[in-house]
């Protein structure tokens, strides 16, 4: 094998050993730089989203200049697809900010529509949600059909281009990419895209049974979506990996979590485990109330990406269940000195590395941060985190 191919294999082995709760040669370092890569390469987030070529170049710069074992995602949002469909959901507030989703534009379904949604979610999505979400799809035929075809074509092109980026990262820099797809919990999906987050909180109080029925009906569709994405990438030696960002649960009281979040989440996690597909839930917020719940998940089939929490407690409670990542404050890379950044990395490695099952990563996807801090921290983890 060539040197690059060796490097690629070595990095994959390292990360998946950790996934399997074993001890690799050293602590693997995960780059969460899908958005930050734009800043690093001197582009804006918008530029990389509209011009996939630039997005690819930015990722290549990350792969060649930042000490890393794996990048989590190429976080390009295909601007052309959204434009073709007439979406108003994403906003660029200025050249310097990232695309954002507004809660106001997420409110495209009314609470009294839950029963119809729950009866046939797929039909409801196609016939009701899509035309509301995408202005072009609300127009009469053949305009809507043309818009759909254009959107599909743009999406296909985006798929081919991002596939090319993944290939280039692998063959030129030996850099693997972690995620093969992304899914959301049905509750987060409904809140983020159909009802708005604020309305979801109202629904939990005002029409809890309808809300729950919609979540239950939506779950099989989400599993299908995840499988579709996993099967789209070629077969390979290690499990495919899905990303699962989680938004609402830590904002709920525990009884609501038990009712609306946990059953569907467990179903989803158990299903993908049964298919030998690994899932990386991004546990946003403070999950300390729920560590006992997380002990019920299938062992060695997920990597918990934690935003917050006491690393000692997380390690203690979950070390036999899941690989642990995250917890490193992204804001420190933005505001801290090099010494402060390294000290924090040492603290986390000291607690989380022993015994394996740990991948070094930031608490959230990086949007902004000083390159010199990032390089210093990653280098430190690679040298200090060697298993003897």
């Amino acid at each position, binding site marked *: 094998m060539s040197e690059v191919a060796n490097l690629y294999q070595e990095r994959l082995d390292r990360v998946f050993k950790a996934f399997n709760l074993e001890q690799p040669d050293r602590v693997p370092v995960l780059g969460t730089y899908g958005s930050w890569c734009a800043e690093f390469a001197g582009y804006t987030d918008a530029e990389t989203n509209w011009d996939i070529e630039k997005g690819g170049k930015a990722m290549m710069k990350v792969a060649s200049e930042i000490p890393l074992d794996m990048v989590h995602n190429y976080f390009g949002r295909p601007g052309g697809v959204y434009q073709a469909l007439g979406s108003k959901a994403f*906003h660029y*507030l200025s050249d310097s900010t990232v695309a954002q989703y507004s809660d106001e534009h997420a409110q495209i379904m009314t609470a009294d529509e839950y029963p119809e949604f729950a009866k046939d979610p797929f039909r409801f999505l196609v016939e009701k949600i899509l035309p509301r979400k995408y202005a072009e799809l609300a127009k009469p035929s053949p305009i809507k059909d043309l818009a759909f075809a254009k959107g599909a074509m743009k999406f296909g092109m985006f798929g081919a281009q991002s596939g090319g980026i993944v290939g280039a990262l692998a063959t030129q820099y030996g850099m693997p990419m972690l995620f093969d797809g992304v899914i959301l919990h049905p509750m987060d999906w409904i809140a983020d895209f159909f009802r708005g*987050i*604020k309305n979801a909180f109202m629904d939990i109080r005002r029409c809890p049974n309808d809300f729950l029925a919609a979540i239950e009906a939506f779950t099989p569709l989400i599993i299908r979506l995840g499988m579709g994405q996993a099967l789209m990438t070629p077969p390979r030696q290690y499990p495919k990996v899905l990303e699962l960002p989680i938004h609402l649960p830590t904002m709920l*009281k525990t009884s609501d979590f038990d009712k609306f979040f946990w059953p569907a989440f467990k179903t989803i996690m158990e299903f993908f485990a049964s298919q030998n597909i690994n899932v990386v839930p991004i546990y946003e917020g403070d999950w300390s109330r729920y560590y006992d719940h997380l002990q019920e998940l299938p062992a060695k089939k997920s990597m918990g990406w934690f935003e917050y929490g006491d690393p000692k407690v997380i390690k203690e409670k979950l070390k036999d269940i899941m690989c642990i990542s995250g917890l490193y*404050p992204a*804001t*420190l890379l933005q*505001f801290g000195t090099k010494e402060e950044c390294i000290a924090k990395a040492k603290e986390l490695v000291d607690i989380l590395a022993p015994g394996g099952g740990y991948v070094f990563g930031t608490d959230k996807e990086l949007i*902004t941060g000083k390159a010199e801090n990032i390089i210093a921290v990653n280098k430190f983890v690679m040298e200090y985190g060697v298993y003897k």
Partner: protein
Amino acid sequence: MVDSKVLIQAMSDLDEDVLNKAIDEVLSKDDNAAEVQEIVKACQQGMTLVGERYDSGEYFIGDLVFAGEVLQNVMDKLKPALGTGSSAKGGKVVLATVFGDLHDIGKNIFRSMVEAAGFEVIDLGINVPVNQIVDKVKEVNPDIVGLSGVLTLALDSMKETVHGLAEAGLRNSVKVIIGGVPVNEVVCKSIGADGFSTNAAEGVKICQRWVG
């Protein structure tokens, strides 16, 4: 006559039905000014209890958002029957989600809680440029400026806003509190704010200390 205890409890339990029934009953009467005031007071006290239940780990953000909605509905219903300048003001807050950020859930929770605590709030909304905040501070002379944001990018905007206030010579006449997921002590220092919180109820307490 309204039963304050029942209303305080209903607000604290986020029981809209009980509140609405009582309000409708009072509004149907002719000479209701005193009772309307009584309801407002009870809801404010109920909101304090909501904050306490949040602090104790019984309620979470979803409950606070709902509490804000319930309180807003109550006030909307009572507004026509409320005289002007009827409730005592605790202080004045200019509030904004800073430039570059659209997230306003945290800001809105803080607004409803700080309003319930008796503050007058001028909410400038989302994605608010520095000069708009500075101009508003000049205009209304608040006690406190509250800056909110979720993205780490918002931290830069917060810093620019504090800088903008200083350049306009206003920094010493107001306290600045920052709130949102990414704020912490390091960030607060670097931005030059007077206080920070990721917890709306605690944020209200900080504001009360400042004007107290």
